[in-house]
């Protein structure tokens, strides 16, 4: 208590709230006078009395100093003194300051930037109350090789009503609607959610209300909650939303709520939410349609494992009732984990990389400081002669370095801030990437990193040079600044570790680059150039009487396909156009049963194979540039009335007919009829046989890094069609130039149909490799930075040692050593350091790159080629860094050098 009060008084004193100099002087003076008067009374002359008073009371100056010290905090006082001195020293050596600050700022800035990303994507809690209780629930069927897929609406409802471990469970799926009513039709990304969706997340609308339980009933469901940005762009930020309606796919929806601006759900930009409601007998609301995502909130005190066993018990009951549900359970994941997906390893690799860069920067700075402090030995000598203790000297050096580190930290932070501004250019490579910013945590980390770095790079040189001071030596005029052997060894050690760390980073970036190269080299199965793609979502009105027994597109859909594809193909500059249910690189997301009729039939549903399925119309293969291997493509000859035909990919052909020609074989896209429960076959349904008419090259639908799966193409007119067709248009010139005329073809057919996701195939490809590309670019940048820093380090050490060995070199040359000998002598020294560094680095890299296994494609973490190339690169750079000072050594004039001795 007392100590605290005193401390605050002293802080106040430190901040300038002290007694004025004159006030203190007056008090001391009055003291002196009283003493002098007393002395006079004892019989001294006035002059004698005053002199005597001064002597007996001790020095005035000393008294004042003691007083001032008591008045403030001497520790802080000296700290500021040292800091001011440090700033002065930095300003006096702008060259050193610039090199040091830039080195360190790059290191710190890289860390701040990557940490901002890690913080925003990985560490920041989800923007909901008590986020740790939120879980994502999905179906899993390990025995069928399915890791994670959606639930069916009836299963979800059963889980929702029968569980005992969740405070709330809701389901949702993303859907697009055609929003009309404005001047142009728009595609709206919406989430179709069950009414308790918002309360599960724990978020309330900013205006209006969330959904009511009754709005789950079909007919009462035409209400919507919109995002804050939708409210701003479509409702003019008017808080009065009552009675506002928008038309979604032709149905009027009443706006009941507006979400707050900070509400976001995942990487998607969801603009609106509508209730999930099913018409009775809706084909989607059946037991074997697995497509809804579930998010739940655990009851307080319930663990994820408890909830998992509770929910799986319910799934078992369901499976008893519905045999097709056998072996399907649910898997739980924290919602945060679910959002993150698989980007954690990539981020951690980057975080390690910037850590290494910073370490190298530290080593470099330590080296610089060692050199600089040994140049300051005279100053150090004077200071210790004047009574500075070793601790005091070390403290001064460290304060000076901290000043440097904090300045660099500030520059680094600015670098990070501006580089984060470039993030949007990388596209949406990571979930929540738009939430990345420099916040309090980043500031805190940058501050901490700066201080720790400052301590790290200054401690060794400070201790080293304050120890090596030999007072008389350094004060002697002309006394050569002495450098112990230990000093040289220390610098060598620093260079070795720099080379080792740089090697690790370079190998990591080499691996990332090679892996990207492998990814680019993958034969995607289609040709990328000059292709425009987009998709259109057809409203339910295009299929007014859904008939499960019908094969092929409903009449209006078929009409839409015919008119638009024909219209587009007639445009000048279009080579071919076609429709496909899902474009390449969009995911392997539509599978069907597959039975080859010339092979033994499967004995049960479980034993029936699945293959990928794509519905096509028009000249899809020509537009995509898929190669024909055998037979023919599907085209305008395949109509609803002609022989049912399919085209298969090479993977499927290899799997079922490895040594035979598949063309002409008969297949089915459903299980053998005797295996299907009677009630599941729609009345009037015809189970068709298809003839294989062609084999085409494998197309990567899942992603360039995934193996193509067996796949069947059928005409949209003959098998399952699609209500959200994607178009592929092969053009002669710039694909984007055609967007306007294509749009008018579509709106001529139906003015309420918007085109969405208008992209060239090149854009789709580059988006699909955006994350590995960013990883490779960043790692390459950090690796290059590390190499430059290490090279500077080697250069510094070698040129320093050349300047130290001038005399020796002079003697050698005087005794007949050739320039080549000297060159070799100096380079050998540098290469020895580099060799040790490389050896250590290779050992380190072998251990460290294993962490990268998950982010690499087609390259092993110990890829020998990468290791060899990088070692050669490091050797070459080292040689260059040694060669420059070595060449300087050969220019030593023996006579000058010897006279200097």
């Amino acid at each position, binding site marked *: 208590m007392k100590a605290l009060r*005193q401390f605050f008084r002293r802080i106040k004193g430190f901040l300038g709230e002290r007694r004025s100099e004159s006030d203190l002087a007056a008090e001391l003076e009055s003291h002196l006078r009283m003493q002098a008067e007393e002395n006079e009374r004892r019989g001294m002359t006035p002059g004698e009395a005053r002199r005597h008073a001064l002597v007996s*009371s001790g020095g005035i100056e000393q008294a004042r100093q003691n007083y001032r010290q008591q008045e403030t905090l001497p520790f802080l006082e000296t700290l500021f003194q040292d800091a001011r001195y440090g700033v002065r020293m930095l300003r006096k050596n702008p060259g050193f300051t610039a090199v040091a600050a830039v080195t360190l700022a790059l290191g710190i800035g890289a860390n701040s930037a990557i940490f901002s990303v890690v913080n925003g994507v990985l560490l920041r809690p989800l923007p909901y109350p008590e986020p740790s209780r939120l879980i994502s629930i999905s179906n899993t069927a390990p025995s069928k090789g399915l890791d994670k897929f959606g639930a069916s609406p009836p299963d979800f409802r059963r889980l929702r009503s029968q569980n005992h471990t969740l405070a709330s469970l809701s389901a949702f799926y993303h859907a697009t609607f055609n929003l009309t009513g404005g001047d142009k039709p728009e595609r709206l990304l919406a989430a179709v959610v069950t009414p308790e969706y918002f309360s599960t997340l724990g978020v309330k609308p900013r205006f209006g209300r969330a959904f009511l339980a009754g709005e789950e009933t079909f007919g009462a469901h035409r209400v919507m909650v919109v995002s804050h940005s939708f409210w701003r762009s479509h409702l003019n930020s008017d808080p009065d939303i009552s009675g506002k309606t928008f038309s979604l796919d032709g149905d009027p929806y009443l706006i009941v709520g507006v979400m707050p601006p900070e509400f976001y759900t995942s990487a998607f930009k969801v603009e609106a939410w509508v209730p999930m409601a099913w018409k009775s007998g809706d084909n989607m609301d059946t037991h074997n349609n697995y497509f809804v995502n579930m998010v739940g909130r655990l009851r307080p005190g319930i663990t994820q494992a408890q909830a998992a066993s509770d929910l799986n018990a319910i799934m078992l009951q369901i499976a008893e009732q519905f045999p097709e549900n056998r072996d399907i359970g649910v898997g739980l994941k924290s919602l945060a984990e679910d959002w993150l997906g698989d980007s954690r390893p990539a981020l951690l690799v980057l975080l390690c990389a910037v850590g290494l860069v910073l370490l190298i920067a530290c080593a470099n700075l330590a080296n610089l400081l060692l050199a600089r402090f040994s140049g300051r030995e005279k100053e150090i000598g004077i200071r210790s002669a004047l009574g500075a203790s070793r601790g005091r000297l070390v403290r001064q050096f460290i304060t000076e370095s901290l000043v440097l580190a904090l300045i660099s930290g500030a520059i680094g932070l600015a670098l990070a801030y501006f580089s984060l501004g470039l993030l949007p250019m990388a596209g949406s490579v990571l979930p929540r990437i738009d939430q990345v910013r420099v916040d309090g945590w980043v500031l805190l980390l940058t501050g901490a990193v700066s201080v720790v770095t400052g301590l790290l790079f200054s401690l060794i040189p400070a201790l080293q040079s304050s120890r090596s001071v030999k007072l008389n030596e350094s004060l002697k005029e002309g006394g050569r600044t002495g450098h112990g052997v230990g000093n040289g060894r220390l610098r060598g050690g620093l260079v070795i570790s720099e080379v080792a760390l740089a090697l690790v980073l370079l190998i990591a970036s080499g691996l990332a680059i090679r892996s990207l190269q492998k990814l680019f080299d993958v034969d995607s199965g289609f040709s990328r150039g000059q292709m425009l793609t987009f998709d259109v979502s057809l409203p339910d009105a295009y299929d007014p009487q859904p008939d499960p027994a019908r094969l092929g597109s409903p009449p209006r859909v078929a009409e839409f396909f015919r008119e638009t594809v024909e219209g587009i193909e007639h445009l000048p500059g279009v080579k071919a156009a076609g429709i496909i249910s899902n474009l390449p690189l969009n995911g392997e997301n539509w599978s069907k049963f597959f039975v080859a009729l010339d092979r033994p039939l499967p004995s049960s549903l479980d034993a029936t194979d699945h293959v990928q399925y794509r519905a096509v119309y028009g000249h899809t293969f020509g537009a995509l540039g898929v190669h024909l291997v055998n037979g023919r493509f599907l085209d305008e000859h395949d109509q609803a009335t002609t022989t049912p035909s399919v085209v298969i990919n090479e993977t499927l052909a290899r799997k079922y007919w490895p040594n035979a020609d598949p063309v002409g074989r008969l297949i089915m896209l459903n299980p053998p009829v005797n295996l299907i429960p009677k009630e599941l076959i729609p009345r009037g349904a015809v189970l068709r046989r298809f003839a294989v008419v062609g084999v085409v090259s494998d197309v990567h639908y899942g992603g360039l890094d995934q193996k193509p799966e067996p796949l069947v193409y059928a005409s949209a007119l003959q098998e399952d069609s699609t209500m959200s067709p994607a178009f592929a248009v092969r053009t002669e010139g710039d694909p984007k130039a055609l967007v306007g005329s294509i749009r008018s073809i579509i709106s001529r057919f139906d003015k309420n149909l918007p085109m969405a996701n208008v992209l060239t195939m090149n854009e789709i490809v580059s988006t699909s490799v955006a994350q590995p590309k960013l990883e490779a670019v960043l790692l390459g940048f950090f690796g290059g930075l590390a190499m430059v820093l290490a090279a500077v380090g080697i250069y510094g050490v070698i040129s320093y040692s050349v300047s130290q060995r001038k005399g020796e070199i002079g003697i050698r040359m005087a005794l007949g050593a050739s320039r080549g000998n000297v060159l070799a002598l100096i380079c050998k020294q540098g290469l020895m350091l580099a060799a040790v560094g490389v050896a250590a680095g290779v050992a380190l890299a072998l251990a460290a790159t294993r962490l990268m296994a998950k982010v690499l494609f087609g390259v092993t973490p110990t890829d020998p080629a990468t290791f060899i190339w990088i070692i050669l690169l490091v050797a070459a750079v080292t040689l260059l860094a040694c060669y420059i000072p070595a060449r300087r050594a050969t220019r030593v004039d023996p006579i000058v050098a010897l006279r200097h001795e």
Partner: protein
Amino acid sequence: MGDRTEVWQGTLALMVLRTLDTMGPLHGYGIARRIEQISGDSLVVQYGTLYPALLKLEQEGYIAAAWGLSENNRKARYYRLTRAGRRHLQREARDWQKTTAILARFLPREEES
């Protein structure tokens, strides 16, 4: 800031407080003279130590200072004991007596030269 001053200041503070307790408000010179007198002139109180000690006591809230007039109509800064200071003095005096009593048992009388 060696250790010696610390110990010296500790005892000096007690002497200052005791002086102010018996004499009432007093200026720095008066405090110094009084301490020297009581010690039988075996102590010299230099103002290099006295004034920082007074400042410390002021910071701790045990004494308060104000400008006033001395006996000789001279401007002088007067120090007086606060309530906290009086309490502190009592506590410290007790502790000090206890300490000296214990120490006395360790140190034989003959040691006095």
